[in-house]
């Protein structure tokens, strides 16, 4: 049972490039989330999904896009990377809305 798997673990992007952060869970969780964490700070919600085909914006959605075509996968797309998107990105999932979250190990992204 792998839990929540994020790839890649590290990535360096140049300004203006695009990339997709992958997130997959094998726990049959309905809810999935993307958070970013800047150094020494808390977690900011980017997007979330309550099931396949349903997504909604969080606190800081600008510059990002998501899709949820299956229960298992919830990729995060960065378009036109900017230095302000340098951060650690965590994907998480939960069985239902009021259950504890399981987090992936994170993707450390640097935009130069």
């Amino acid at each position, binding site marked *: 049972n792998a839990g929540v798997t994020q790839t890649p673990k590290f990535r360096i992007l140049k300004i203006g490039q695009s990339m997709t952060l992958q997130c997959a869970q094998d726990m049959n969780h309905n809810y999935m989330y993307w958070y970013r964490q800047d150094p020494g*700070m*808390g977690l900011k919600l980017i997007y*979330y999904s309550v099931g396949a085909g349903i997504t909604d914006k969080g606190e800081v959605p600008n510059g990002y896009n998501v899709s949820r075509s299956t229960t298992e996968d919830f990729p995060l797309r960065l378009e036109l990377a900017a230095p302000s998107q340098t951060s650690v990105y*965590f994907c998480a999932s939960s069985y239902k809305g009021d259950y*504890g979250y399981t987090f992936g190990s994170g993707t450390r992204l640097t935009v130069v």
Partner: protein
Amino acid sequence: QQPVQSPQAVILREGEDAVINCSSSKALYSVHWYRQKHGEAPVFLMILLKGGEQKGHEKISASFNEKKQQSSLYLTASQLSYSGTYFCGTNPNQGGKLIFGQGTELSVKP
């Protein structure tokens, strides 16, 4: 709106107790607590729901005062393994979408 945690940091000796508080300006349905060690992902500790239901961890307890929109996490007889940053996450509605506080850094010394 982001919940406010206090204190921002605390240093303990092994065996001492600590309380971490989480306050919101909005009425809350649920409060979650997580611990994050340096360089690792947050790990779920406990959830408290409106109406008093509590689910979570054996050695760490928490309270939820719905009227005051506050939650407190109690760590008793602290161990070295308790060190890390503790985050509360709050949700004013039933189901999903937590907003996290800024974190409380806890250091337990031998």
